[in-house]
């Protein structure tokens, strides 16, 4: 069933702050097998001009995707999450995410399209720090595949 176009442009309330911890960044870097010391050693990070260890470029997805859950689970929108696949992902960073950040995410529905029976939903997550400064924007395209025989 096609999603309601009137949801385009709808923003959801900012999330509670997510506090980025050094050990969480380490855990993520180890999970992707990346030994770059800028993720684990504050001195190595400072040598590159960062105030503390930074997170890998895609780390913030864990935070923005959780925030996008507000959209995905919005009963009024009525997306069938069991049929959803991740289509595209993009990040634009004002600066890298780093340990000590307290990040909030504001999710907005950028577009809703129906292509060959699939619902295609573009969600934008604007990530700000505690001072209200923009850190990164994440664009997530979700595709809800048409049910067989529909």
């Amino acid at each position, binding site marked *: 069933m096609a999603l309601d176009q009137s949801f385009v442009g709808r923003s959801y309330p900012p999330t509670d702050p997510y506090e980025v911890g050094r050990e969480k960044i380490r*855990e993520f870097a180890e999970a992707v097998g990346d030994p770059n010391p800028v993720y684990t050693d504050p001195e190595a990070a400072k040598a590159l001009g960062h105030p503390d260890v930074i997170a890998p470029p895609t780390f913030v997805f864990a935070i923005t995707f959780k925030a996008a859950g507000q959209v995905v689970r919005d009963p009024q929108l009525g997306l069938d999450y069991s049929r959803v696949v991740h289509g595209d992902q993009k990040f634009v960073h004002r600066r890298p995410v780093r340990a000590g950040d307290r990040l909030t995410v504001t999710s907005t529905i950028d577009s809703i399209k129906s292509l060959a029976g699939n619902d295609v939903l573009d969600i934008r997550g604007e990530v700000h720090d505690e001072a209200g400064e923009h850190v990164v924007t994440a664009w997530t395209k979700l595709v809800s595949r048409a049910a067989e025989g529909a």
Partner: protein
Amino acid sequence: MTAKISYDDVEVGTELPAQSFGVTRATLVQYAGASGDFNPIHWNEKFAKEVGLPDVIAHGMFTMAEAVRVVTDWTGDPGAVVEYGVRFTKPVVVPNDDQGATIEVSGKVAVKLDDNTVRVDLVAMSAGQKVLGMSRAVVRLA
């Protein structure tokens, strides 16, 4: 933010050192825990097949994280990545054996932009198939 590659030293067509990344079922369990993405298609073969997949598949975000390492290892400073986007075109199928799957990533400078930035276009392959499309990173060089 200090990249070790100088803007003046690269040209359109400059190739970045290619890399390959292994991924086993154990890798996916570890990534699930670290990322918080516990979708069973990434660890439960029975579930994956029930929803029409050939087998367990890697998290798209795992593949995305690996591919950009060709860029971050090149520049030295991952904080120099200004933009990064991909399209998930094919899944990385991860069999339940000791070898798992391999993701092969290459990249080259596609455009020289303003402010000492360049656009790098990445190609990520697994089992002979292109697993990412439109995989592009904009990175600030020294």
